[in-house]
């Protein structure tokens, strides 16, 4: 068998596909951002590591791989929807598969930063178009007619003068011998049949009948179940443990110590392995453990904020961005504000608790789980177990929510450690309490915001933050400002306001941190946008008009016009409270207007939220709407119902009874509008979150005169 055939068979076997087929994929020439398209045969001949993104068999069955995790944000739908458009196949006729984790083949697969579409759509369009052109070329050769007389439609190539047609399956053998075209002409947006349309998601039916396989649902023959009692504080060691009672629980097979990687450190834990999840949980309850975490700081939430306030009030911090000299203006200005805003720590609390299946075998280590960053898991596991890449296979299941937490390596690492010890396939399951008390968390941050109004104009802004920097946990330098200090702030302000500075006053605790949906924009947005609202009032301006005066770019002006128009901002009634905020996040700008009201004797109620989204080029408007609707609910919870607090170094919240989620009866009416333009695609999964809290607190101020500068707050008490 030739090398070519072996490689080809490996592609197919990995994908669960066999037989003659046209395989077209992308490869990333070393160091290049932009991918090149290749067919499998020529890739193998040139020794190129290519992914198998499109697979068409001789029956014309098309399989398209989605390289990104599906955690609710719609990548499972939108990646194939892009490819299908240029490939000229109907998405309903396409078989969608998750790709395995492999950076060399798929490029960046880390599903974070709302990057799936904005990071890959141009490559995906080119990929689909290249495969289409290869099929057309193969047909033209068979008919012996010019390529220009042929076109593709609905999985067929058609010869325009005669009406003759081949279905793609009849062309795969000939097409697979062709080189991918060097340049292809992409379709115009106005010619799209699928992109830009609210096509129903291909994963919806699977999510209404229990058939979708999430990580927790993945099972292997002979698989055991494990739960882990971990050190409740990250730092420290295991002094001793007694497993004798646990081992007497029916179903419990094995109890042993593990050390799970958490960033650059390790957390000690005792794994209890059993023949059912329940038996493992019962065994764990029977453990007797003594931890030793002496010598490590045991933090308390009030101390965190006290320290943060001291820092922002007394230190200048590390400069993150500076233009002009805001201090000079602030020193002499007579109209000015100096305010502090406070945001809490938060847990991701995806509905699917963390879990992972691993099977450590002599020849390979295979992982299946709800994984946001398969390539990071592969890298990490290879390093921890000293295995070469080809022996570590990472498979993504559906994710029952991710929000940033499932782009972490600790739970796959645990599954691998436990499977290595038992020699069987193992599923490690985190209980809700594990998921909520172990972190990593979104950092809670305090902000000091100073601003001046000179001659009625916003003349200076000075922002300082003190809060943990997630980059430090990943080994980033500590002598540089948090790169995300300016996240959320709109770029046009830098042109219209000459004197602005942002600084990060370094602040650390032993609490591990990680990104949380919309990352630092989720907290920055509250401080910066709340402050702009307060500055507008200081200047005696309407907060929406105030922004219009400084966001002097066409896209922002149009966004503001749209916000004003859809919300009836100018027509508000006396008993209504209206609030506004606009933030940028991962290439997308979202403006929101929140309307609140209060009936006699009742609490303040959110009547409606209008969200206007400028994400540039987009794939599926219904998914954009859904993501913004959902982001608003997540923001509502983080603003009004839940926070993570610490007492003696331990997390006080354990489950949904004391980390309260918004429920259906808390849901305001949400109306989403998308701006239509041809700008580059921005992110969609996260940008709907940051503007909600500042728009809400401004609406409450508008209604009641009460200013809220600390999250979360209780809607019942405003």
């Amino acid at each position: 068998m030739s090398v070519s055939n072996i490689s080809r068979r490996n592609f197919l076997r990995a994908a669960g596909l066999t037989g003659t087929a046209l395989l077209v994929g992308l490869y990333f020439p070393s160091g290049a951002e932009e991918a090149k398209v290749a067919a499998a045969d020529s890739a193998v001949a040139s020794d190129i590591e290519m992914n198998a993104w499109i697979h068409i068999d001789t029956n014309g069955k098309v399989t398209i791989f989605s390289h990104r995790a599906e955690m609710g944000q719609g990548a499972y739908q939108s990646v194939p929807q892009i490819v299908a458009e240029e490939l000229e196949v109907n998405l309903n006729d396409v078989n969608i598969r998750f790709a395995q984790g492999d950076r060399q083949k798929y490029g960046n697969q880390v599903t974070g930063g709302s990057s799936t579409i904005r990071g890959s759509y141009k490559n995906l369009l080119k990929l689909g178009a290249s495969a289409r052109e290869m099929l057309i070329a193969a047909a033209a050769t068979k008919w012996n007619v010019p390529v220009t007389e042929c076109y593709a439609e609905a999985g067929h190539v058609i010869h325009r003068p005669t009406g003759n047609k081949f279905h793609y399956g009849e062309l795969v053998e000939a097409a697979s011998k062709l080189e991918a075209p060097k340049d292809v002409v992409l379709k115009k947006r106005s010619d799209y049949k699928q992109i830009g349309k609210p096509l129903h998601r291909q994963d919806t039916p699977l999510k209404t009948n229990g058939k979708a396989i999430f990580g927790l649902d993945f099972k292997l023959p002979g698989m055991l179940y494990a739960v882990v009692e971990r050190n409740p504080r990250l730092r420290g060691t295991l002094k001793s443990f007694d497993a004798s009672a646990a081992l007497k629980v029916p179903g419990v097979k094995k109890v042993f110590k593990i050390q799970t990687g958490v960033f650059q450190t390790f957390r000690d834990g005792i794994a209890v392995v059993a023949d059912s999840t329940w038996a493992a949980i019962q065994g764990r309850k029977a453990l007797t453990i003594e931890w030793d975490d002496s010598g490590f700081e045991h933090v308390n939430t009030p101390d965190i904020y006290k320290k943060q306030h001291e820092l922002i009030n007394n230190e200048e911090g590390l400069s993150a961005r500076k233009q002009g000299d805001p201090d000079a203006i602030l020193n002499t200005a007579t109209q000015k504000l100096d305010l502090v805003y406070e945001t809490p720590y938060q847990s991701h609390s995806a509905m699917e608790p963390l879990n992972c299946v691993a099977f450590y075998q002599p020849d390979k280590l295979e992982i299946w789980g709800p994984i946001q960053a398969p390539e990071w898991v592969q890298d990490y596991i290879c390093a921890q177990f000293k295995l070469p890449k080809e022996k570590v296979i990472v498979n993504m299941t559906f994710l029952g929510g991710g929000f940033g937490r499932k782009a972490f390596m600790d739970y796959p690492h645990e599954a691998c450690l436990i499977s290595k010890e038992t020699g069987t396939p193992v599923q490690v399951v985190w209980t809700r309490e594990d998921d909520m008390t172990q972190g990593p968390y979104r950092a809670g941050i305090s902000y000091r915001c100073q601003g001046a109004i000179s001659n009625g104009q916003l003349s200076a802004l000075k922002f300082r933050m003190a809060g943990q920097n997630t980059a430090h946990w990943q080994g980033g330098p500590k002598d540089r400002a948090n790169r995300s200090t300016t996240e959320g702030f709109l770029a046009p302000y830098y042109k219209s306001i000459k004197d602005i500075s942002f600084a990060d006053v370094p602040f650390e605790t032993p609490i591990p941190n990680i990104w949380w949906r919309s990352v630092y924009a989720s907290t920055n947005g509250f401080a910066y946008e709340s402050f702009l609202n307060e500055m507008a009032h200081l200047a005696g301006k309407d907060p929406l008009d105030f922004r219009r005066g400084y966001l002097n770019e066409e896209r922002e002006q149009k966004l503001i016009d749209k916000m004003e128009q859809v919300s009836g901002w100018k027509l508000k009634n006396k008993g209504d409270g209206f609030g506004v905020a606009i933030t940028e996040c991962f290439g997308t700008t979202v403006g929101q207007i929140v309307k609140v009201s209060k009936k006699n004797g009742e609490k303040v109620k959110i009547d409606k939220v209008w969200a206007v989204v400028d994400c540039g080029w987009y794939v599926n408007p219904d998914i954009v709407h859904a993501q913004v609707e959902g982001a608003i609910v997540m923001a509502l919870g983080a603003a009004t119902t839940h926070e993570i607090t610490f007492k003696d170094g331990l997390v006080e919240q354990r489950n949904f009874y004391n980390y309260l989620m918004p429920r259906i009866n808390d849901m305001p009416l949400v109306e989403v509008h998308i701006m239509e333009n041809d700008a580059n695609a921005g992110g969609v999964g996260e940008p709907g979150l940051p503007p909600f809290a500042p728009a809400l607190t401004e609406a409450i101020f508008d209604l009641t005169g009460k200013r809220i500068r600390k999250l979360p707050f209780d809607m019942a008490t405003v």
Partner: protein
Amino acid sequence: MININVNGTPHQIEADPNMPLLWVIRDIIGLTGTKFGCGVAQCGACVVHLNDQAVRSCVTKVSRAEGQKIVTIEGLSKNNDHPAQLAWNQEQVPQCGYCHSGQIMSAAVLLRENNNPSDADIDAAMAGNICRCGTYQRIRKAIRTAAELQRKESASK
């Protein structure tokens, strides 16, 4: 041995009688549509029907289900065509989808007892089910759509 009937199929289960029905359904019978979310009856991801009533299987001991009729999401309809399932598809409700087995099982009981629920009825019946993706607006809409489908269906009978 504990005898239970799940989706019309009888099962003889060898398990601790205190084991929650959730883990019996998932780990022993192998039906994974019913989800583990909180383990303490707070989130509703584990809702199944026990003798036609919505129960939280994470806190329902398997001994309580002895000899009784259990329906899970897999048994709600043969072809994913219960009015709630049809409406959930029509209104494109799920995002991550994890909570929706429980949401649909809760909605199915509401729809059986109220063929024209108001938003207040919906909120009251569905407040026990958490959706972290925040699909609540679409859940309300889907339940109204399902009620309409159901009314049309019974009118045509």
